[in-house]
């Protein structure tokens, strides 16, 4: 699906290229991992310690990141990449994070119903009756199938619901 990104980019133009930036980010990440790895003994070649392989991998990641940045001059300009769905994507992630926090507090059925009401009612602005039917129906039926039929334990709220 890498092609989807390419389809939405406009090649040519000056400024920073996407691969140059992503390569530098990977290099930075490798340096950070190397710094974190200082807590673990690297050991010797005959007895490699817990820090040995992570150090090798951090070096590999940094080197590849550097190569991506160096050879990234022909990639798409960073500013050419469009992010039209970024706002909605952020909303989705935040709503899912809130649902996750609620999951063990108010139980599966209520938290999933809240999630669906938010998306279908607030984000997608569907009719209230449809929102109630889908949110209520989905949370109850899916709980029945997953927890009761398939015996997968799902969290219940303080009211046993």
């Amino acid at each position, binding site marked *: 699906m890498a092609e989807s990104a390419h389809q939405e980019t406009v090649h040519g133009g000056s400024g920073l290229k996407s691969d140059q930036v992503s390569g530098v980010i990977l290099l930075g990440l490798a340096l950070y991992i190397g710094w974190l790895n200082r807590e673990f003994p690297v050991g010797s070649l005959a007895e490699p310690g817990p820090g040995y392989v992570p150090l090798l991998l951090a070096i590999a990641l940094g080197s590849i990141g550097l190569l991506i940045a160096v050879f990234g001059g022909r990639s798409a300009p960073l500013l050419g990449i469009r992010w039209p769905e970024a706002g909605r994507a952020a909303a989705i992630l935040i709503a899912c994070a809130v649902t996750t926090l609620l999951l063990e507090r108010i139980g599966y059925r209520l938290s999933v119903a809240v999630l669906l009401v938010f998306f279908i009612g607030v984000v997608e602005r569907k009719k209230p009756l449809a929102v109630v039917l*889908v949110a209520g129906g989905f949370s109850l039926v899916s709980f029945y199938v997953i927890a009761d039929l398939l015996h997968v334990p799902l969290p219940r709220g303080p009211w046993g619901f």
Partner: protein
Amino acid sequence: MLETFHSLMLGFSVAFQPEVLMYAFAGCIIGTLVGMMPGLGPLAGISLLLPATFGLNPIIAIVLLAGVYYGAMYGGSTTSILMRIPGEAASVMTCVDGYAMTQNGRAGPALAIAAIGSFFAGTVGVVGLMLLAPTLASFALRFGPPEYTALLLMGLFVLAYMSGGSMLKTLAMAVLGLLVGMIGIDAMSGYTRFSFGIVELGDGVGIVPVAVGLFGISEILLTAGQAEPPKVQQPSLRQLIPSGEEFRRSAGPILRGSLLGFMIGIIPGSAHIISSFVSYGIERRLSLHPERFGKGAIEGVAGPESANNAAATGAFVPMLALGIPTSPVTAVMIAAIMIHGISPGPVLIQEQPELFWGFVASMYVGNVVLLILNLPMVGLFVNLLRIPYAYMYPCILAFCIVGVYSVSNSVVDVVIMLLMGGVGYVLRKLGYDLAPVALGLVLGPMLELSLRQSLAMSGGSYGIFLERPIAVTMFVLALILLALALKPLIFKGKDWRANVGLEDQVD
């Protein structure tokens, strides 16, 4: 040969048990539905169903998940042909000529040829698996830590080389995955690494939250804002029958796609995706009228559909024979088997013949089930596509959350899934392939253990890898692939992948 036949009979005695048959059927139906839903490919489908298999016996668990895998491959082709929406990535090439055939009023034959090609390819794949896996497993009994280190490294290089995009980017993602695999308690020293004080990370990062986040959530983040889906055609049973000319033109691509797909499937990487691209490119090259491609050539449906289904089966060969996943899907399936205390690998076929041969036989059965399902019931299945995406994606998100949570009843896993979803979204925007991350995560601990054991065996000398013929051969292969991949980067020229239809993906 006689022994194989007897073993297969044992497999059929397992596969024809009513309970196994029922789960194979259920897996195929669930998989077909999952494959048709944008955002829920085979990987997400298998990951989400994983908790439901905990209470099942291992044979039934793997038969159910394999059914989902196959079904999703079939389901993806239906949406590609009827709506130009690839339910999963391997069906992208089917969109091109499949949808063009729909526009030309030939949706029925396109669906029929896709189903027949998938059935034939699936059967070829199962025969290949049956013959190749036991041989490979007995060969792998000679492997020690140095051979496994070489094999895993070679696998990562093959993955990078076969990937559609830039080799450097693919390698970067594989290394990133290997680093994520380092999180948690080190098996050899007991140190807890990179856990940031989070107790749940002591056991490491699971494949399911990473896979669902990278593939399922990131897909939804990319597509959530899309408009209502287009109208869906529902061909009748009579309209499904291809003409004699269409049958004749499809025979070669189905045969070639089946053989090619199986061979690519054994190699690490997103084999089913790559095989469909390669098959399409080859069929276009071999055609006397390549100009027909893109305008409704049935060969453009028959070849890729056969190839991706054969590749799906081919991927089970290294999984069952070596215990090494070659794709995120097989990584999740290995996790599913290991939950039941069974380790896939060279001794699996000897120690668990019922599981291996039952699985092989159930794949035969699954192929027949899917052929029966896909053709007459296509009209029923496409009703799912009438559900507006505004209702569908919130439900898929809820499934993702509950599926990941259920694996170990951990909220931390759900948070990891969301993080991976966000990371996957950004990486896809920047043109990075995500499959190597998931694969690296699974291979990371294996690679670390075998490398450290090899060094301990040799008293700290890397020369041990040059003293073992199997390891040397694998390293030489890895180096050749690296050199081939770097060639177009250094010398200006066309990459082979550009010649077989992957040009859009090659940077």
